[in-house]
């Protein structure tokens, strides 16, 4: 097992270097300059531009800038944002809990609804429910997030008035972030009703962000469960007279879970992709919308630092999934 984990970790190193290089290069390929983009019609005097570029080290050759950046990263310094002058890491840490909170809720939503739906569809294969579930999940999987989000807002928030339109908390409540997780912070505060408000603000973004993973989980669970249910050992287990719950829950589900866990792990990456749109629609103050704005402002430090952090996290999650996978299925360890 240890050797398995070590091999996986050794694979992480080249990936990390790749991310460093890509996050650094990609934004520099986009036309536009982080300084000039700040100026409107008036523009900026060439001398002043040269001075600012020199101050930010942008006048150096690219490889020098990159080596310089590497040196700073090695010391744990991701630089300061060009537009706000705040350290990138500080901004990231302030915004990241919101993304995690939303992502976790979406994942839980996907699993809570997707897993049982998949099992149910597998068990009732060919039934109306099965067909309905499969076509719904196909629709869910191909749902354009932006459109879906606005649709839900218009229906539930504007027409019916059931849920808030956007944000994390009603403006009425005054909460200083301690953990950055609104559900926890609002529970810790003395503001009555804040927790409920935080929960209500989570509903629509969770549903929107969770829709695609939900569809994926449901479909994956169904097909994997179908395969497992027809295995000999299920018949054996049943023949032994085990309770139906043990047959399905222990023998069936555990084996069917292996591909499902992989898929859930892979969803973390696409979840962050979906978060970009979801956060923009719901004015959710997370890292995804922060990165989008950094692209518009050509805020190089924010982008390269932010992408590096997010990509590293996705990588770590995938590593964790690999390890978990190994635990669920001993054959993979070899």
């Amino acid at each position, binding site marked *: 097992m240890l050797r398995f984990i070590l091999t996986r970790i050794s694979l992480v190193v080249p990936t990390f270097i790749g991310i460093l290089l890509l996050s650094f290069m990609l934004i520099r390929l986009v036309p536009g300059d982080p300084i000039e983009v700040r100026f409107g019609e008036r523009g900026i005097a060439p001398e002043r531009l040269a001075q600012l570029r020199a101050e930010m080290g942008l006048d150096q050759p690219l490889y020098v800038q990159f080596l310089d950046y590497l040196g700073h990263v090695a010391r744990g310094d991701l630089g300061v944002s060009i537009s706000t002058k705040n350290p990138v890491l500080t901004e990231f840490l302030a915004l990241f809990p919101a993304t995690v909170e939303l992502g976790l809720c979406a994942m839980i939503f996907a699993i809570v609804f997707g897993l049982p739906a998949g099992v149910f569809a597998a068990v009732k294969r060919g039934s109306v429910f099965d067909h309905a579930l499969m076509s719904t999940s196909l629709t869910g999987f191909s749902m354009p997030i932006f459109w879906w989000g606005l649709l839900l807002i218009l229906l539930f928030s504007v027409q019916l008035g059931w849920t808030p339109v*956007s944000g994390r908390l009603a403006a009425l409540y005054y909460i200083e972030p301690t953990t950055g997780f609104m559900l926890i912070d609002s529970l810790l505060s003395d503001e009555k009703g804040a927790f409920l408000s935080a929960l209500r603000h989570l509903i629509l973004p969770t549903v929107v962000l969770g829709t695609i993973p939900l569809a994926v989980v449901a479909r994956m669970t169904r097909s994997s469960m179908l395969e497992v249910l027809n295995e000999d050992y299920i018949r054996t287990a049943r023949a032994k007279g085990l309770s139906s719950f043990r047959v399905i829950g222990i023998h069936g589900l555990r084996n069917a879970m292996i591909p499902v866990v992989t898929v859930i792990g892979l969803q973390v990456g696409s979840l962050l992709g979906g978060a970009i749109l979801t956060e923009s629609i719901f004015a959710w103050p997370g890292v995804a919308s922060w990165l989008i704005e950094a692209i518009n402002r050509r805020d190089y430090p924010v982008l390269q630092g932010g992408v590096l952090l997010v990509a590293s996290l996705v990588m770590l999650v995938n590593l964790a999934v690999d390890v978990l996978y190994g635990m669920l299925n001993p054959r993979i360890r070899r």
Partner: protein
Amino acid sequence: MGGYRETNEAIFEEAPLIRTLPLLATVALGALVMAGPAAAKGTLVYCSEGSPENFNPQINTTGTSFDAAKPVYNGIVEFERGSTKVIPGLAESWTVSEDGKTYTFNLRKGVKFHSNANFKPTRDFNADDILFSFNRMWKADHPYHKVSGGSYDYFGDMDMPKLLKSITKVDDYTVKFELNDAEAPFIANMAMDFAQILSAEYGDALLKKGTPEKIDQEPIGTGPFTFVQYQKDALIRYRANDQYWGGRPPLDQLVFSITKDPAVRYAKVKAGECHVMPYPNPADLPKMREDKDINLLSQEGLNIGYLAYNVTKKPFDDKRVRKALNMAIDKKAIVDAVYQGAGVAAINPIPPTLWSYNKSVKDDPYNVEEAKKLLAEAGYPNGFETDLWAMPVQRPYNPNAQRIAEMMQADLAKVGVKAKIVSYEWGEYRKRAQAGEHQMAQLGWTGDNGDPDNFLYVLLGCAAARPGGSNIAKWCYKPFDDLLVAAKRTADVAERTKLYEQAQVVFKEEAPWFTIAHSVVYKPVRKEVVDFRVSPFGRHQFDGVDLKQ
């Protein structure tokens, strides 16, 4: 297989957790869906379009950031809310010397600065705060000059370093600004966002603590609201300043709920989650007009969108060619199709809301035959080939430069002029246009200080016609420039008005631009909001605003 399915179903029925999980979750979700309070009494929520860079308008450059700092600060003089009129602020009155080079401000007494967890002011506002604020921008050896990047763009853009000779404290409540030249727009510059007054005492206290950058993040000012809380990309919270020298504002609390998407901002206004929103989608305007919960306020913006002919390049060095093209383009069609009710056709280079706008100037009529005749006279009976630049981005004065370029291209083809549409990335576009690489280029302007000089001299004066300057027609016409310079030298508004009116006549006659349009700014505001005024500068200000209960 059939038998299997039956057994499997039986199994499922016996697996209570799997079966009931979605059911439980649905019930929980449903329980949450209950109507909750939208906003507290006396709290106005403004759905702002983005996060500010910081809370110091000396170093900010965006309207978003200026809006966020405005509740906290005052200037020596200010713009009257909803107009371009300069009114007293922290100065009760001021005098201008005969030669127009010395401005003496008499400061208001008993003005209190805000306090926060880390700072309690021990004295009232006085002349030291003015020196502190201006010297920070002006003097490289000021302890705060380098703090937060040390870039004072507007201070530089308004040519203050060149203009200022000295700032002196005469006594605690009198400050004297001496200028190198008589410059009438100076007083309007002093009302701009960059000229807001910070607390010198707060500056000293932060310096001692070793956290000078906090001055730009946790602002202390004299303004109508005190800063309470900022969470990036989420909200900014202010509370009414009970000790405000202008009287406590009617609102108890002001919240900026940061909402980047205009469709979502609109949904929030409809749902009552916010009261005022900026920058609506033009497509939503008809629905907003009909909405009984919303007042759709509008005002012609302080801006101009134009097409500049590069007069240093053939054939645009010939006035007849410029006039001909002005007649060949169907302006009304462009304004109707592209601005869709959110713009008015422009005649002069300044908007009609600006003082000294010359109403008697007539626009060049749309007349293809006349245009052809003029071209033939100028030696181009069969037209010519040219480029036609279009910005790649939407600007406040021009919602779609590409579409406008296409319409112009079609119009010009009718008089034999073959125009090739050219575009670059925005920063690059502006740089190349200012370098004068184009023959014809679209651009525009949004006013900074409500002074005609800020349009005419900046966009059409000789000083700006140098390569890299903001006069992209590169049009330096002495009789026109003389009028502008004369208008700078006198503080007499009647005299200045006359000079600018004349300048507009010369402009139309010489036709360095095809004036496209002035855009109209729309602000959807909920019915319960009282006395919100649309700012000609595109700002959003809440000091006199109230909510009907």
